[in-house]
């Protein structure tokens, strides 16, 4: 991949030659470029890329699991902190990983540019002259046949159909054919490398302009609209996404169904949804869709996925004055196999305007929910994920939930520091089946009314993924051609046999321009055909 250089001009005699700074700089740039685009550098960069990608599979990654990552760092002391500082928990956006693949990208471009030129020249060129001494070629056979030289040439033309051939008259009745095949290999190789270039660029752009958001929607006809970041429970934007101007669409979850085997292994999840996008948003019409795992909804350039499901127990609190409050809040599964779930349903006392007083009378119902309950010595467990005989084991907490503290709070748990400070106290602990209730010391009644299923959805937006796919397919096709097509040459030289003038001396030679593997057989077959009389199939 190095260009040949013109020999240096005759040195100026009067001054000793010394390269000026500009020249030195140019030489440096040129040498760096050459070094960077050499095959050896590409090879080393490939190794570095493999090596650099590996920690991402072995260490927890922040983008995949932030909680686990933080745990890992704290449990590994200074070592964890050091790795964190060196970006080992964000390998794929780290400076060093990016550096390697950018260098590889440059190397690739530097390598492809000259090769493309070379390729364009080669594709127009005629096959090379038949070498003078064919017996030096890796494959060579010689023999005498009864046909005339003209007949032999005709035979060769027929046999070498599909090859690129050049015939030459070498004088004295000696004629030769030079044939080459397998240009597709180089085509494939270039398509492959360009495809990869395109893929990397498209992938990087996609990372900037994509976003992903998760949201839980109750399966009771509740709806979600992609109108802004606030609509999501979690939202991961790309670098160039600020959360405004999302593609507008709405989804309504009417029902959720799961089927299981007898032992509780899930067989099928399906959310019965309706959606509207584009013109439907104005007319207000809804289209039905069966959302399943592996069957995302594709609308408005976005995709909506069914990630999972869960249960929301419904609690009603009847205050001493007779007012009631009902809430259906999602709890999350702590065990995916049995769907034993945990959560916290929080209530503000009604009709209390004084903030200080309200903070003494807030309620939280926390604990466990089991869809297929089994009580074992008073301990609630679940025997399966299906809704068979739901039950909750709850602690009712009263006091200050800390909702006004300004600290962000998970909807699945209560603020434990409030419990530690004694500002939030347990006032009841009870197992409840549907329809059962527990009455607190002040006469407030907490009842477990039933269960609602919810669907956990993800919305994904990636404007470049179709391009990535196209490039990936180009890579694959190019790779196939580049690895499976063999570039090879064959030469045939014929001259009339000495003496009686009948018959022809035939020389056949072959050369595989790429790996030799497997060419021998093809050559042998072809040589056999040329060197035997008559036709052989």
């Amino acid at each position: 991949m190095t260009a040949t250089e013109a020999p240096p001009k005759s040195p100026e005699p009067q001054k000793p030659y010394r390269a000026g700074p500009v020249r030195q700089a140019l030489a440096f740039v040129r040498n760096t470029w050459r070094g960077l685009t050499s095959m050896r550098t590409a090879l080393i960069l490939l190794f570095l890329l493999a090596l650099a990608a590996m920690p991402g599979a072995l260490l927890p990654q922040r983008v995949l699991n932030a909680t686990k990552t933080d745990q890992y760092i704290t449990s590994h002391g200074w070592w964890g902190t050091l790795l964190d500082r060196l970006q080992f928990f964000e390998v794929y956006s780290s400076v060093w990983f990016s550096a390697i693949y950018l260098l590889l990208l440059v190397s690739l471009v530097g390598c492809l540019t000259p090769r493309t030129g070379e390729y364009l020249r080669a594709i127009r060129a005629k096959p090379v002259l038949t070498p003078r001494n064919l017996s030096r070629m890796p494959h060579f056979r010689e023999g005498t046949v009864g046909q005339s030289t003209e007949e032999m040439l005709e035979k060769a033309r027929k046999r070498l159909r599909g090859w690129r051939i050049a015939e030459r008259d070498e004088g004295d009745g000696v004629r030769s054919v030079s044939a080459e095949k397998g240009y597709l290999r180089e085509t494939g190789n270039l398509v492959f490398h360009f495809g990869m270039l395109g893929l990397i660029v498209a992938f990087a752009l996609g990372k900037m302009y994509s976003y992903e958001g998760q949201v839980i929607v109750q399966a009771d006809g509740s709806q979600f609209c992609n109108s802004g970041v606030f609509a999501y429970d979690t939202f991961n934007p790309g670098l160039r996404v600020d959360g405004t101007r999302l593609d507008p669409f709405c989804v309504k979850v009417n029902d959720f169904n799961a089927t299981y085997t007898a032992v509780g292994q899930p067989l099928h999840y399906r959310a019965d949804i309706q959606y509207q996008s584009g013109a439907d948003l104005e007319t207000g019409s809804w289209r039905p869709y069966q959302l399943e795992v592996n069957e995302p909804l594709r609308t408005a350039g976005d995709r909506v996925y069914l990630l999972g499901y869960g249960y929301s127990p419904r609690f009603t609190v009847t205050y001493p004055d007779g007012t009631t409050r009902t809430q259906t809040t999602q709890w999350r599964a702590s065990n995916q196999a049995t769907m034993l779930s945990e959560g916290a349903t929080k209530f503000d006392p009604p009709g209390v305007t004084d903030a200080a007083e309200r903070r003494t009378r807030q309620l939280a119902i926390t604990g466990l929910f089991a869809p297929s309950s089994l009580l074992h010595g008073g301990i609630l467990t679940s025997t399966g994920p299906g809704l068979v005989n739901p039950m909750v084991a709850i602690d009712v907490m009263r006091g200050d939930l800390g909702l006004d503290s300004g600290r962000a709070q998970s909807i699945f748990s209560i603020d434990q520091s409030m419990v530690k400070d004694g500002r939030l106290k347990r006032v009841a602990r009870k197992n409840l089946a549907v329809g059962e209730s527990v009455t607190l010391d002040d006469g407030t009644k907490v009842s477990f009314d039933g269960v609602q299923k919810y669907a956990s959805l993800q919305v994904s937006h990636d404007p470049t993924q179709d391009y990535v796919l196209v490039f990936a397919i180009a890579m694959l096709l190019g790779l196939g051609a580049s690895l499976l097509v063999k570039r090879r040459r064959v030469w045939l030289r014929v001259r009339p046999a000495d003496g009686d003038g009948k018959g022809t001396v035939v020389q056949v030679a072959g050369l595989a321009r790429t790996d030799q593997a497997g060419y021998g057989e093809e050559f042998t077959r072809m040589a056999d055909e040329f060197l035997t009389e008559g036709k052989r199939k």
Partner: protein
Amino acid sequence: MPINETLSRYSDWSYTTATAIYVLALLFFLIEQSFGVKSRRAAASAGARARELVGAGGPGTTEVTAGTGTDAPAVTPPALPTGRAERIGRMGAALTVLGVLLHLTALVLRGFATDRAPWGNMYEYIMLATFIGMATWLLVIKKFPVRHLSGFMMLPIVILMFINGTLLYATAAPVQPALQSYWLVIHVSAAAISSGIFLVPGVASILYLIRQSHEQNPARFAKFAGRLPAADVLDRVAYRTTVLAFPLFTFGVLCGAVWAESAWGRFWGWDPKETTAFVAWVIYAAYLHSRATAGWRGGRAAVINIFGFAATVFNLFFINLVTAGLHSYAGVG
């Protein structure tokens, strides 16, 4: 879909029998490798087969076969009579064919028993990959004079199959919702098939290194390596099989990305399995590059190929069993 217990049981029996037959064949091959004349002869001449073929050409022809960079003693030894060891080797090959057929039966029965593609958990995956490894090897020994090396190929296969049948065994069952897709059929089979094929160049490259070290210094591995074919033959076996498996592997990764797009919400997310597949892919790409780079052909290329296979094995065992990711479908409890 109910599971057909009877078929599942027959599948298990076929699997166990196939493993036992491989062990037997392995012993036969070891005998051939240790005592065979053929092995020594094959070791001496690289292109034995090519020559035989050419020798059958018409009269009055001369043949020149340039060894591709082999400086091995290229004297054609006198033809030796078919010895007893060679007969034992051929029996081993026949047994291997029988084993491969039973292996295939086990796979097919498992498919019928579960009424889905029989590669939905780690046990089934390894069953498929080892089957492909063996089938590829049968093709290789048809094309290259390396039958007496079958023992080295079968040793890892037998160990894998044993571990698989005991520690990783999973009863026939339906797969979870995320796996109920035709992409399971395409993506997983492409991955298992390419991994199975990659076993062949992995073993060939190890033997290559031993043989090469012996060729450089005949005192090293004198007894053992003297019976291996020329380094050049091993190199070709490794290259031809890698070149077959690599596009397939690429296809498998590509299909995985397409499937991930519809099952997990993104086509690529650096899940541990995806990452390790990427690493293995890059290593094999480096292998192919190394063969076009001066100073890297031969020994270094072989080392890279071994690394590639190590990454593949690591992906199968470590990532499935130790790390937790979206690919945790091993079904090993």
